[in-house]
């Protein structure tokens, strides 16, 4: 078969062997499954925040948002950690949980956390009611409030790889 100098060779897809037909490369851009929640995290789990403004604080994990980030709160009244998004990679999930079945998270949207000035009153309102519900649950367990107030730190002799959280 004679080819003209600038002629491209076009593959006859109908007759070519399947392994010779070019396929598009896998796109890793879209994370189709979404962020998988760590196995031990359950709504109501107490988590230890490891980085950022509130590093060392313990917070209550409320739910996983659509973006894959975790929604946590101190509660604010207890230790100053507000309703906040946090990446689960910067968090240690402990096996302690509190009951969050009575908590209403329906009006919380991710838009609130994108620093929109107009949303602040709604956020403050939700924070207040949420705190009240969570505080009631926290008070049911002995020493839980003091535990939530306290900060986590590694002390001499602590071996994090050996510690059970």
């Amino acid at each position, binding site marked *: 078969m004679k080819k003209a100098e600038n002629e491209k060779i076009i593959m006859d897809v109908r007759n070519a062997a399947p392994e010779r037909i070019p396929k598009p490369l896998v796109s890793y851009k879209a994370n189709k499954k979404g962020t998988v929640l760590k196995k031990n995290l359950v709504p109501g789990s*107490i988590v230890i925040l490891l980085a950022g403004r509130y590093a060392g604080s313990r917070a209550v994990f409320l739910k996983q948002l659509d973006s894959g980030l975790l929604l946590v709160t101190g509660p604010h009244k207890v230790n100053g950690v507000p309703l906040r998004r946090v990446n689960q990679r910067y968090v240690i999930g*402990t*096996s302690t949980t509190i009951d969050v079945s009575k908590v209403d998270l329906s009006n919380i949207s991710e838009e609130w956390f994108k620093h929109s000035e107009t949303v602040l009153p709604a956020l403050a309102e939700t924070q207040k009611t949420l705190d009240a519900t969570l505080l009631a649950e926290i008070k049911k367990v*002995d020493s*839980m409030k003091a*535990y939530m107030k306290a900060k986590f730190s590694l002390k001499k002799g602590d071996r994090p790889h050996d*510690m*059970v*959280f």
Partner: protein
Amino acid sequence: MAFKRFVQVGRLCVVNYGAEVGKLCVIVDIVDASRVIVDGPTTGFERKVMSLKALSLTKVVADVSRGIRQQKLAKALEEQKVIEKFNESTWGQKKLAAAKRASLNDFDRFKVMLLKKERSLAIKKAIKAM
């Protein structure tokens, strides 16, 4: 007698070296002056030859015959309450406490810290009152 704990068939031992560190096992047969055949049916390791250097003898002896099979050994240990006897001893209590301490979760460790502070305060008060 100068020695009280003998390497004998049925002697309960604690492994102090190697992969099975900390586990309880029973001497089932003797190979020579430095090695024994040991079996840990209750602590989950298969019968094997171990050097006596890797074992620490406890004061508990099970009444079993030489070369007893693993399942029969497990049954005998349960019937004679061998592990329970060990757990009652000071050594046994310490091992249990260490296991408990290792299994505490973050909240438990916090509660322990509060209790330690409470105890320390009570001690200081008692000393001051003297």
